[in-house]
C-alpha cells in the first residue's frame, strides 16, 4: 500500500466516482441484477407454457415479457457485463493505473443504468414494449403499435448503445496506448485481444441499430416513411439494418467469453496457451466474418438466390475460427497438468453446450433447413445453447475465477460445484427438448398452444429445467454473499496465474500498481511518474515503448449530471420531438462544465509539464 498514491487516486463521493474498478463493479452488479430480472421473466414465460391452453399469463403481458426478456438479456446484460469485465480487467492486465477516459466511463455507466431502469419501470407499469427484441416494422411501426410502448424500446437502444460505444472506445485506447512498457502486441493477454476485437466490432455494428431505431422512432413520432412501403419505404430495410448489427452482436457477446476461456484454461492446465498466434488470428477472423452473415436471419424473406448461397457459406465458415480455438484449448488441456476447480468446470461446459449450439447453428445456416427451422423453438434452443453455453457458462467461470481479485476472498468450492451441476443439468433439461419442439412445429413467440399439438410433455420438462436454472442462480447469489462476508482470504494470486492482474493485491488498490513492471526485463519497474497527481504512462501501440506521461482527470460529478440530462432528453423525446431541442441545453451545459479545466488542476499539470 502506497498512501500517497492512494490519496491521489481514490474516489471522492458516490456520484463522482470514476475509478474503473468501482465503475466496473457497479456495471457488473447492475447488469447481473438485470440478468436476474430478465431471468424471472423467462421463468414466468416457462410457467405459462408448461401446459397447453394455459391462461396464467395473457397474450398482451406475455408479449411484453418475451420482448423485455430478450431486450434486457441482450442490451442490459450480455453486452454490458462483458464490457464491464473488460473495464475492470483490461487496465489491470496491461499494467495501467486507470482506464482511458475514466469520466466517460462513469458517464457510460449512468446512462446504461437509467436506460435499464426505464425499461423495467415501464414493464412494471404494464406498458412495456411488446414487439420482440427485434421489433420488426410494420408491427413495431406507428399504425400497429399505438402508444409509447415501442418508443421506450427504441430509446432503450439509444441508451445502451451510447453506453456500449463509449466503453468500446475506452477499451481500445487503453489496450493500445496504456500497456506497461515491453508488453508488445504479441505479448498482450488473449482476454485483452478479445476485448479489443469486441470493441472494434461494437464501433462498426452498433451504429446500425442506432440508425434503425432512430428511424423507427422518427416513423412513429414525426411521420417519416422509412418503413412505409406505400411511400417508398421498406419494412425489410429494418431487417437489414437490425441484423447487420444483430449478428455481430452475438459475436461481441461470444468473443469476450472466448477471452475468459483463454485466461482460465491455461491457468488450470498449468501451461501457457497452445497456439497463441492462431488464437489471435482466429479472433480477428471471427470479427470480420461476423459482419458477413446477417442475411441468414432473413432467409424466409424474399431474397435473390445467389445472395443466399453466399450468406450460407459465410455462416458456415465462421465455424472454422471457433474450431481453431476449441482445438487449441483441447491441446492446451491435453499437454497440461490439470487442476479441477469450479472456474474450470464452468469453462468445460462450453465444450458440451457451445459445440452443440454451434452445430445447430450450421444447420440453421443452410437455407433449406432454415426454411423449416426458422422462427421455431429449434432456433430458441440453438440461440440459448450458443449464448448460455458460449457466454454465460464461461462468464460464471470468470466470476469464480476473478472473484478473489475483485473482493480479496475465495468463493466456496462446494457451493460452486453444486451450482455448476444444477445449472448444467437444468440447462440441458430446459433447452434440449426445445430442439424437438421446433422440429415438431412449435413456433416462437406464442403465448399458448392447443393440446392437440402434442407439445405439452416437452414443454413441461423444459419448464422444470428452467426452474432448476433459477435454483442454480439462487445458489450463486448465496455463494457470492457468503463468500463476500466470510470467504477464505485469497492472497494476491490464488490460482497461480501469470497475467498482470494477479501481480497486485486483492482487491487491487485504487491505483492498481504501486510499481508498474517492465515486461521482458525481469525485475525492472517504472519510476518517474508523479505520485501526487494522476499521472499515467502512455506507450506506443505496437512495441509498448514509453512515449509520454499524461495527467488524468480527477473525480467529478459532471458525468453523472450529464447522464441525468441525457436521460431527460431521451425520455422527453418520446413524448414530444421538441425535447430534442430543449433537452440539449442542459446536456451542453453539463458537458461543457465537465470538460472545463479547473484552475488547481491546471496548476498541478503545469508543474509537471514538459513540452514535446
Amino acid at each position, binding site marked *: 500500500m502506497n498512501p500517497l498514491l492512494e490519496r491521489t487516486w481514490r474516489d471522492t463521493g458516490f456520484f463522482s466516482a470514476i475509478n474503473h474498478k468501482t465503475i466496473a463493479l457497479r456495471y457488473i452488479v447492475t447488469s447481473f441484477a438485470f440478468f436476474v430480472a430478465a431471468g424471472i421473466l423467462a421463468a414466468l414465460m416457462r410457467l405459462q407454457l408448461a401446459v397447453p391452453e394455459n391462461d396464467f399469463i395473457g397474450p398482451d403481458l406475455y408479449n411484453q415479457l418475451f420482448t423485455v426478456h430478450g431486450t434486457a438479456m441482450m442490451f442490459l446484460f450480455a453486452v454490458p457485463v462483458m464490457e464491464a469485465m473488460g473495464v475492470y480487467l483490461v487496465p489491470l492486465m496491461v499494467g495501467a493505473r486507470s482506464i482511458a477516459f475514466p469520466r466517460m466511463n462513469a458517464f457510460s455507466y449512468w446512462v446504461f443504468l437509467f436506460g435499464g431502469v426505464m425499461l423495467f419501470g415501464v414493464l412494471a407499469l404494464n406498458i412495456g414494449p411488446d414487439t420482440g427484441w427485434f421489433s420488426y416494422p410494420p408491427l413495431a411501426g406507428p399504425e400497429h403499435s399505438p402508444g409509447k410502448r415501442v418508443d421506450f424500446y427504441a430509446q432503450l437502444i439509444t441508451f445502451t448503445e451510447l453506453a456500449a460505444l463509449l466503453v468500446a472506445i475506452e477499451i481500445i485506447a487503453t489496450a493500445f496506448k496504456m500497456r506497461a512498457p515491453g508488453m508488445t502486441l504479441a505479448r498482450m493477454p488473449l482476454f485483452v485481444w478479445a476485448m479489443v476485437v469486441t470493441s472494434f466490432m461494437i464501433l*462498426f455494428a452498433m451504429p446500425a441499430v442506432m440508425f434503425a431505431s432512430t428511424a423507427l422512432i422518427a416513423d412513429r413520432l414525426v411521420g417519416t416513411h422509412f418503413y412505409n412501403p406505400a411511400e417508398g419505404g421498406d419494412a425489410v430495410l429494418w431487417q437489414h439494418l437490425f441484423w447487420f448489427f444483430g449478428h455481430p452482436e452475438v459475436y461481441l457477446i461470444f468473443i469476450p467469453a472466448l477471452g475468459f476461456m483463454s485466461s482460465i484454461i491455461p491457468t488450470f492446465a498449468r501451461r501457457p496457451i497452445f497456439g497463441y498466434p492462431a488464437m489471435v488470428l482466429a479472433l480477428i477472423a471471427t470479427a470480420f466474418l461476423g459482419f458477413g452473415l446477417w442475411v441468414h436471419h432473413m432467409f424466409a424473406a424474399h431474397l435473390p438466390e445467389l445472395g443466399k448461397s453466399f450468406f450460407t457459406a459465410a455462416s458456415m465458415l465462421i465455424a472454422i475460427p471457433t474450431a481453431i480455438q476449441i482445438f487449441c484449448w483441447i491441446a492446451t488441456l491435453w499437454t497440461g497438468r490439470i487442476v479441477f476447480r469450479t472456474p474450470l468446470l464452468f469453462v468445460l461446459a462450453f465444450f458440451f453446450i457451445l459445440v452443440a449450439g454451434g452445430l445447430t447453428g450450421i444447420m440453421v445456416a443452410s437455407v433449406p433447413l432454415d426454411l423449416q427451422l426458422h422462427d421455431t423453438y429449434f432456433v430458441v434452443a440453438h440461440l440459448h445453447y450458443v449464448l448460455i453455453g458460449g457466454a454465460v457458462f464461461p462468464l460464471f467461470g470468470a466470476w469464480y475465477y476473478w472473484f478473489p481479485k475483485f473482493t480479496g476472498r475465495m468463493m466456496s468450492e462446494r457451493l460452486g460445484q453444486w451450482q455448476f451441476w444444477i445449472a448444467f443439468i437444468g440447462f440441458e433439461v430446459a433447452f434440449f427438448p426445445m430442439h424437438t419442439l421446433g422440429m415438431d412445429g412449435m413456433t416462437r413467440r406464442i403465448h399458448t398452444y392447443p393440446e392437440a399439438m402434442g407439445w405439452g410433455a416437452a414443454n413441461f420438462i423444459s419448464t422444470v429445467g428452467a426452474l432448476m436454472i433459477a435454483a442454480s442462480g439462487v445458489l450463486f447469489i448465496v455463494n457470492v454473499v457468503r463468500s463476500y462476508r466470510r470467504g477464505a482470504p485469497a492472497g494476491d494470486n490464488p490460482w497461480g496465474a501469470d497475467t498482470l492482474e494477479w501481480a497486485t493485491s486483492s482487491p487491487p488498490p485504487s491505483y492498481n500498481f504501486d510499481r508498474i513492471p517492465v515486461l521482458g526485463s525481469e525485475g525492472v519497474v517504472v519510476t518517474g511518474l508523479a505520485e501526487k497527481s494522476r499521472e499515467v504512462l502512455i506507450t506506443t501501440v505496437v512495441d509498448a515503448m514509453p512515449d509520454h506521461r499524461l495527467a488524468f482527470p480527477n473525480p467529478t460529478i459532471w458525468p453523472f449530471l450529464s447522464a441525468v440530462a441525457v436521460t431527460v432528453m431521451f425520455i422527453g423525446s418520446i413524448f414530444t420531438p421538441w425535447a430534442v431541442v430543449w433537452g440539449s441545453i442542459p446536456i451542453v451545459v453539463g458537458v461543457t462544465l465537465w470538460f472545463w479545466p479547473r484552475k488547481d488542476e491546471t496548476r498541478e499539470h503545469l508543474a509537471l509539464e514538459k513540452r514535446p
Partner: protein
Amino acid sequence: MKTLDVSWLPSYKYGHHSLMWWGLMGLIAIEGTALALAAAAYLYVWSQANVWPPNAPPELFWGTVNVALLLVSIVPNHLAKRAAEDGDDARLRLWLVVCLLMGLAMLAVRALEFTALNARWDTNAYGSALWFLLGLHTVHLATDVYDTAVLTVLMFTGPLEGRRHVDAAENAIFWYFVVYAWIPVYAITYWMPRLG
C-alpha cells in the same frame, strides 16, 4: 531494484501518439459508420423506387455554397492545427475565431439548405432519408462548432496548459472529418438524382 525512469518524457504529444487521438478515431469510426449506413439507407430506398427522386432534387444553390464554405474552412482549420502544434497561442486564437465564424456561417447556410430540399421528412421515404442524412451531418457540424466555440473561449480565458494545444489540434482533425464526410453525402443527395 533496476528501474526505468520516465520522468524525462514529455507530458503530452500530438497526433496518433496521444490518447485523445485514439478516442477521436473511435468517434470518427462510429460516426463515419453511421453516416455510411444513412447513405446506404438512402441508396436502398432509391433501389426500391420506380422514379427517383420522387420530388425535384434539392436546389443546388445553398448546398453548393455550403460545400464551398466547408472546403474553404479547411484552410483556417489547417492553420489553427499548425498553430496548435507549434504552441503559438496568438495564432491559434486568431484561426480558431476564423474557424468558429465560418462554422456559424455554415450552420446558417445549412438552415437555408433545409428549406431548399424540395421534400419534407414526412413527404415520402426519399424525403425521410434525405433529411436523415442532412440531419446527421448537421449534428456533427453543430457539435464541431460547439467544440470550437468552447476551445476558443478557453484559449482567451484560460486556465491554459500545453496539452490544450493537443485538444485544438484534434478539434481540427474532427473538422476535417466533418468536411470530408460531407463530400460524398453532397454528391449522392445533390448530384446523383440529377445525373442518375
